[in-house]
């Protein structure tokens, strides 16, 4: 059993979740994920890692409450335990001195882009960080990100903070700031990762996305996390989760992400959903 050290809502529907798991904390790196099971009847779900404390043996993730498993995680309190917390899984994000790197975070990815930005900074890069949310009240961890970034950009769809709009505005904002990134790394919901990849492709900015498919074992056995990259089937849990965003078949990926929505997400939007809590 793994003890919950912290579980709190840091923005509406956005949860910071810290678990005591020394073996995972010992070897986790930026870009890795963990697989979590909220209770003994629970599903195995992947969560991107957003931070860790090797000395304290803790690992932190940010998750958005979407389906029944995250709904259950959101009800855990410090001191509670969960039966499964396994990792670190997936290949870590490739960190090198690339020059100037644009780190894009959205949704839960504002959290998981943090260790990427930190590692890039330590490797000597000029780190520009851009975060995006529907509105200013959905932003979080700006202070943490500021500390590891040379420049910060904020986009909100309603314009309540930073620039108004969507990640589509990235090329324009970069041009205005006189930045030509040597690499773009995106941690965000699927749609945002797709949009960033679409706008950076004509500019030939190498774009790495941290994919988030449905998983079960997460160790290269079941094959549910497969996606098409450059016309070939890849498995996100062992070949990724980082892939070249310009090579991904996004339409296929979006369809696969949604395949269990009728079972997992829709019941939460209806009344009479007791069996799901």
């Amino acid at each position, binding site marked *: 059993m793994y003890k919950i050290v912290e579980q709190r809502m840091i923005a509406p529907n956005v949860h910071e979740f810290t678990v005591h798991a020394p*073996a*995972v904390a*010992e*070897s986790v790196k930026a870009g890795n994920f963990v697989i979590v*099971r909220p209770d003994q*009847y*629970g*599903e*195995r779900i992947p969560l991107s890692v957003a931070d860790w404390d090797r000395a304290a043996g803790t690992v932190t993730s940010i998750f958005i409450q979407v389906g*029944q*498993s995250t709904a259950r995680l959101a009800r855990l309190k410090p001191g509670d335990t969960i*039966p*499964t*917390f*396994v*990792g*670190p*899984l997936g290949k870590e994000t490739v960190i090198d001195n690339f020059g100037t790197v644009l780190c894009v975070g959205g949704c839960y990815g504002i959290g998981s882009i943090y260790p990427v930005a930190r590692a890039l900074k330590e490797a000597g890069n000029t780190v520009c960080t851009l975060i995006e949310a529907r509105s200013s009240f959905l932003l979080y961890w700006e202070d943490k990100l500021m500390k590891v970034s040379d420049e910060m950009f904020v986009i909100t769809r309603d314009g309540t903070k930073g620039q108004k709009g969507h990640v589509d505005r990235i090329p324009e904002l970069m041009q205005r700031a006189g930045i030509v990134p040597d690499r773009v790394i995106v941690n965000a919901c699927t749609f945002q990762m797709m949009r960033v990849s679409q706008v950076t492709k004509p500019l030939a900015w190498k774009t790495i996305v941290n994919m988030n498919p449905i998983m*079960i*074992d997460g*160790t*290269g*056995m*079941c*094959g*549910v996390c*497969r*996606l*098409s990259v450059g016309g070939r*089937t890849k*498995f996100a849990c*062992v070949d990724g989760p980082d892939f070249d965003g310009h090579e991904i*078949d996004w*339409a*296929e990926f979006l*369809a*696969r992400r949604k*395949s*269990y929505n009728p*079972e*997992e997400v829709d019941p939460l939007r209806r009344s009479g959903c007791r*069996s*799901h809590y």
Partner: protein
Amino acid sequence: MSETKPEKKILDLARRAMPKQTPWERVKNFDEVALGYPAETAVGEAARCLQCKKPLCNQGCPVGIDIPGFIRRIVEGDFAAGVKKIKKTNALPAICGRVCPQEEQCEKTCVLGNKRSPIAIGRLERFLADWEAAAGRTEVPDMAPKTGRKVAIVGAGPAGITVSNDLIILGHDVTIFEALHECGGVLMYGIPEFRLPKAIVNREVDYVRSLGVKIFTDFVVGKTRTVDRLLQDFDAIFVGSGAGLPWFMEIPGENLNGVYSANEYLTRVNLMKGFRFPEYKTPVKRPSRVAVVGGGNVAMDSARTAVRLGADEVHLVYRRSKAELPARAEEVENAEEEGVIFDLLTLPVRLIGDANGWIKEMECLRMELGEPDASGRRRPVPVEGSNFIARFDAVVIAIGNSPNPLIPMTTPGLEINKKGGIVTVPETAQTSRPNIWAGGDIVRGAATVISAMGDGRVAAASIHRYLMNLGSKA
């Protein structure tokens, strides 16, 4: 040896049938299909054994069970002694008795098979194991004094459990690291409840634990800690990390929604207990027209699972003919009884989706058998212009898998073959690195439970020799 011969009576020479749930009952539940011999039937079946002076059945057993020996104990009615006899060389009799392909091994060489049916060795093995469990007893073998040498086992599947059992008895300190949240490996995630109840797997794992084996679940060797990191704390490592990425046919449409690898389909239902959704939270679809592609035991398990999940029609699509089906005859028969439709000499060429990315239809070709290929089986050849399209709302691909990539990817200096398996010396199960052994699917790709156990037995003997050469630390 002063063993008296069992009293001779007029023998009923027919092989005793296994009581089973009727097909119309069992398609509606996930309970075990084969119900096991009652004691009387077991004794009757055992009495058919000729007790050959030079038995051939033993030679067919990958773990070398003294088969005439345990059968004689059944005839004598001393079931406890029979169990002890088996457990000397097999830690998992309740499992082997159920899932071993006996007709390819021990029963194949039984001399009774020449004129009549061979002795039902697997059923008798199962009978003894179940008798022991029902009697609430556990025969524990004699344990050697502690050596103080430490061995790490990667994976709590059939290979890992066998190595652990053998080495703990020999006095070594054994720790298993299991990636999933439950022990058993393929016995847990792959083989369905109706063929191997999970309570039995748990019982066998508890038995190994009771001998003093330490088990850590949720620990992915290669990720949580590398093999080389573990070697700082252990004298030897056995890698039994099992099956890896499922194979697909590499035809258009395989990433459509509703197309599953057998690994995914079976894991959802078995390990995650999706058949009890929403009590268990992992969902599994319940489509009405299911195609399972493949002809092995995993394909049979997938098809029979689909039947139990309420499909109206389940087709098993296989490119060769019935004679070439690699699955056990018993499983083919069970699947047929349960209404699985066999589309033989049929090859899928394209999966067709609807506007939302869900599988809708499958295009296939008819095949005919040509000349024998490298495997000795007649090669299936497409019949020109025989394409046809059938409607399906789920397709399960059960054509095999490669070995798990995690240890090969993260362990430098380990020799790997073209298929991604770890290369070992067959006589010792030793890898290209001196203190690492490997066995089961990580070496063989997709093989059987008993061959994994056989590898485990070989590895344990070799690891024991290695550790004794290092000298005792105790």
